[in-house]
Every structure is written in C-alpha cells, then in structure tokens.
C-alpha cells in the first residue's frame, strides 16, 4: 500500500457524451498516473444526453490538475473539474445487513438509529437492512456501532456531489458550443 502523505482527497467530476467505453478511457488516465480511485459513481446529469462521473482520489493538487486536463482532452469528454470538499455538497449511501436475531437483544436500537439518523429498509426473520446517508466518517461511525451485531454485509456507494458555485459552467459551455456550431455552419454555407 502506498502512503497518502501530502495527498488530499479530491473530487473529480467529468461530463461526457453518453458513449460506450468512456469509463475505461477515464479510468486508465488514473491508472497510468498511479492514482487509486477511492470511489466512483456514474449517472445522467441535469442536461439531457450528458453523463456525469464523480470520482474521488487522493492526490496532490498538481497531479490532479494535470489529470483533469488529460481527461478533458479525451474527445467525448465535455468538461472535467476537480474540487476540495469545501467547494461541494456531497453524499454517500451505506447499507448494513445485520442478523435480526442480534438486533432483537439490543435495548438501545431505537437510540442508535435515531442518533445516526439512519433508517431500516427491510426486516425479515433472518436479517435486517439498515440504510445510512452521510459523509464517509458518518457511515463509518455507524459501522463501528453495528459491529457488535455481527454485520453480514456492508456496502457504501460512490460519492455524489454538486458544486456550491452559483455558476453552472457545463451549461454555459454547452451553450457556447451550440453558438460555435452555428458559426461553423454559417461559414460552411457561405463557402
């Protein structure tokens, strides 16, 4: 394992056309620079036809800035950005599967759920699924708390994030490109 000395967690967002193979193109840019992807989520964005990748990785700023340039260079990528945690609002979801029998012996179950602002999704005779939405430290805290109940499965989603900036740069960029397209077509028609 490599140390994360002098590295901080960055959130990289990538906006792209919805085309097969883009995830591979993006992930190999991380791999080539020996950056481990901590979490990844892909979803449609608010713009029709544009997909959004949210990726977290530990790196120094110079490395991540160069990486974002390389990502943006890929033909089907519209824009890529990187952020520190204070520039974004972000969330993760965690699910915990615990044997129901273990929970039944717990007197303070309500307090735990309430305290962690978690919720119970499903209860069967065999198991119970608890869900917790929050930051990494919060989902980890609940994990620690539930450990004594013999957690059978645990999973945490990739980070999803939106920026705090009032400017919507991707929307602006797409508008700019639409104008450029008109300009190019005008020039072609004039020829």
């Amino acid at each position, binding site marked *: 394992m490599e140390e994360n000395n002098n590295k901080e967690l960055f959130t990289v967002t990538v906006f792209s056309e919805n085309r*097969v*193979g883009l995830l591979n*193109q993006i992930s190999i840019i991380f791999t080539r620079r020996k950056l481990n992807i901590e979490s990844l989520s892909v979803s449609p964005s608010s713009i029709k036809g544009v997909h959004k990748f949210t990726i977290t990785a530990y790196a120094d700023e110079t490395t991540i*800035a160069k990486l974002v340039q*390389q990502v943006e*260079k890929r*033909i*089907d990528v519209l824009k890529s950005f990187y952020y520190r945690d204070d520039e974004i609002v972000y969330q993760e979801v965690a699910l915990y599967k615990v044997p129901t029998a273990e929970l039944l012996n717990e007197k303070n179950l309500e307090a735990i759920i309430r305290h962690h602002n978690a919720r119970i999704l499903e209860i069967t005779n065999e198991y119970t699924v608890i869900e917790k939405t929050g930051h990494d430290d919060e989902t980890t805290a609940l994990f620690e708390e539930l450990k004594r109940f013999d957690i059978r499965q645990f999973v945490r989603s990739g980070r999803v994030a939106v920026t705090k900036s009032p400017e919507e740069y991707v929307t602006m960029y797409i508008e700019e490109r639409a104008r450029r397209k008109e300009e*190019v077509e005008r020039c072609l028609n004039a020829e």
Partner: protein
Amino acid sequence: MSEIITGAEALIRSLIAEGVDTIFGYPGGAIIPVFDRLYDYRQQLRHILVRHEQGATHAAQGYARVSGRTGVVIVTSGPAATNVITGLSDAMMDSTPLVVITGQVGSELLGSDAFQETDVIGITQPVTKWSYQIRNVEDLRWAVARAFYIASTGRPGPVVLDFAKNAQVATMEWKGYKKCHFVRTYEPNPDINIADVETVAQMINQAERPLIISGHGVEISGGEKELLNLAEKAQIPVVTTLLGMSTIDSGAKLFKGLVGMHGNVAANVAICRCDLLIAIGMRFDDRVTGDPGHFANQAKIVHIDIDSSEFGKIIKPDATIHGDARKVLALLAGCVAPAQHDEWLADFDRAWQVENEKVIAPELNSTRRITMGIVARHVAEAAGKGAVLVTDVGQNQMMSARYFKYTAPRSIITSGGLGTMGFGLPAAIGAKIGAPERTVCFFTGDGGLQMTVEELGVILQYGIDVKIILLNNNFLGMVRQWQDLFYDRRFSETQLVNPNFVMLANSYGIAAEDVETLDKLDAAIDRMLAHKGAYLLNVNIDPEELVYPMIPAGAPISTILLNKDEKYEN
C-alpha cells in the same frame, strides 16, 4: 438519388469522399467484404499490400508526415488489430493523422472469444485520439466522417474504427457523404487570445536573449514561413526539436541547432543562457529537457501549443498561447518590434566552435574509416535540395538527423516519441508514395532494418524508389553505446550475426552494394542516387563509433559529453 448498398461499399465511398487516394492494408477474414468492394474501386483507391500490419501503420505514418494528409490503413481483426498497436502508439506520440480500420467479428459474436476476435477498442483506447466500434451500418458515415475530422485536425493523431462484419455486409440507403466539421466536445481550432499574444510580444520585446524552440507543431501547422518571419524580424535565434528539424532551413543564419540528448552543444547551452524561451509546438520530451528541474530555470518560458493539456505538464510556463502554431506565429510577427540581438547571436559561436573542433571535425574529416556522419552528410549533399530523410531508431537516427541538411518543410520522418525500431523501412515506403517527386533517403541500422525487413516485398511489388543507406556495424549500436559508457563495456546481447544484406536486397529485386572503405563511398552514393528505383547501400561502420555530443539520460542539459574524456565547459 439514393441506392441500397452494403456497409463495405459505403466505407469505400466514404473514403473516396474524404479524398483518400492510397490505402495501406492487408486482408483477412473479418474484412474480406471491404476488400471485395475495394476490387471495384482499384482505379480510384490505390491499395498497397504490405507484408505485416505493423508495416501498414508505419507506411501510413510516412505518407502522412511527408504529405500532411491523413494516412489510411485497413486490416482485419484479431492478430491484425494487435499488430497495428505499435504504429498507433507511435502516431499518438508523434501527432500523426491516421485512420486505421480494423475488421471485427460480427456483433452477435462480440465477447464470445470468437475466432480472431480481440477487444480492439479496449486495447487501442490508451494509444488513440479516438476509437469507435461500428456495429450498426447506420453509424458508418457518421463514424468515418468523425474519424477523419478528429484524426486530421487540432493536434493530429490516430483514430481506430473497428468495423464489425455484420455492419460490413448489412445494407443501407446511400444518400451521399457528409464531412464532419464540428464535434461538440472537441475544439481543434481554438480562437487565439489576442491579449496572450500581446503579452508574449511584450516579453519578446523586453528580452535580451530570446530563444525559439521550434517543434513538430510548426511543421504540422505549415508555419515554417511564419517562423522565419518572426525570427528575422526580432532577430531571435531558432533551435529545433528532432521532429522540428525541417521547420527551418539548415543553412538559415538564425538556425542554431538541434536541442536534446544528442543535440548541438550551442542549442543546449542556449537553453541554459537565454532569458526568454519561446517553445512552439513542442512538448518538453525528456530527451529534450534532461532533468526538467534544471531546464532553463534562469529564463521566462512561453509555451505555444494547440494542445492546452501540454501547458505545465512537464515545464511550468510563465505565459502560454493556445492555438495553431502558424496562426500564432503570424500574429506574433505582426506584434513584435524589430530588434537586434547581435551580442546574443554571437554568444552561440563559442559552443559551435567547440562542437566543430571536438565532435564534428573528427566525425567528418576522418580519412581512415567510414563514419556515420560522413555518410549522412555526403548523401545529403549528393541528394541535393528537397530530399527527405527517413530514419530508423538508434545511432543511425541521431547521426543522420544531425548531419543531414534540411532545405524544405516536411523533410525529416523519424520515430521521435516512441522510438520504434523498425519504423524506418515502411515509413520510407509511405513517404515515397506520399511524395513521389522527392528523393527519399532512408538511414537505418542492421538491427532496425531487420525488424520490418519483410516490407522489402512492398518495394518489389510496387517498384517504390527508396534509397536505403544501411549503417551496418553488426551491433545494436545505441544500446551498445550505453553499455560502453554506462555499463562497463558489458555488451550484453547487442551483437548481431547478420545476413548478406546485398543478396537479401537482390532477392527482392533491389539493386545493392557493399561499401567497405571510405574511398569507395562517394562513387557508391552517386550510383545509388543515379539508379532508377530502390537501392541499398550496405555501409560498413565501426561498432566503436559513438554518437556525440551526449547528455546522459536524466542529467541537467548543461552536462554535455563531447567524447569519452571531455565535458563541455561553459
């Protein structure tokens, strides 16, 4: 007027509509439908049947580099597709426009480990500018148009179209071809920020010791004239990268040499002494910078490139201009004030004197043995104006590049970034096809020639007039040089037992002769150049000969070895 045609036919029509006249290729199972249609278009599309798919890519590179047009390759799936990877990587590193079409098994078989199936998109993504799998015949025209647009514009590069067999045989309605002029996510021709140009013009006006490094981008943009205009107006000395060597006439007064590991002393020294470094269309390769931490620290650095991701990738610039090199150079030439830098220009003289005395004179004035420098210089002089140098990789590359003379744009075709041994022979074939009126002088070594020697068959089949100068020392010379200098002369696995190259060439119908001694050299060169058709000179070279000057890998560029015993002292 519309008609129903197959995807294979549509591909051929699309290529013709893109202005393609030459294809380098090799048929096979998953691309037979395309070759079948090609048969009907033999008059419009010249197909060059190579002997190995790697050769097709390098030939297409040579064609593209000499002509500025996109090189086109068509091969089959599986092993053919994996054989083009080296050429794709090379084209990616050296910004060469290629469209490589690979056959692919039918879409219904994809992912089933079908016969000759390979994950071409997955394998080629890291080494291509763009790649796309055509599974549906309806995508074909869109994909081909996009491929040519992306390959040839901006910073050029290789594009792969993986053409599934079902889409080749499926039919579609042909409504004519539409070229691509716009991709939303890609801007190959960015508007140049005039404020950036003015800032840089100011920096040039204020500089006392400005220096231009001209790279491949100047050649790609066709900016040779604009480069000279700017340099002459402000009296800025010009040094070049290896791929930029023919962006300025070797005889130009302001040309001060080649930079980098085996570059000219004066050019590398100037990088350490200038107060303003203007890098145009180059990417600060480590063979240029040596230790980047000691690269031009005293100077302000201006970086001009069409690819903004190069800014700060290796060397942090003080100012940048994002745009086409030719356009930027024209704008800069308009903005800068006329200037004189007599003292600065004279500053190069001493280093040139030292290099002349310690390196060049001993190389060129040898009376005993044939040196690589003599061969390159004598060939250049005899070939005259407009000759194209194509090289393989290694000592032959560095020596021929250093001692050749460049009198026209697009005159050096060499594998710079990837350093691909075996690049030379097919690239020379492609260059001759791309510029049939020019003399193509191909310098190679005995190692590199044998890596793609099968392409001699292409010379035979099509009568390609390539002059092959084999600098033969029966060693992998550049590795041997490193073993000599840095590995205590332990010549591990660098000696070759070679075939009789003259007989080998003759068996392909290529005229050839051995040159054993210096006194026989010039007459042999004359015979080679006077001969109509391909010719091979097998020149006997001393394996002890080393390429100097040399900056050891990773050392600061001020550490210049002049020979085994002497370092350049500033």
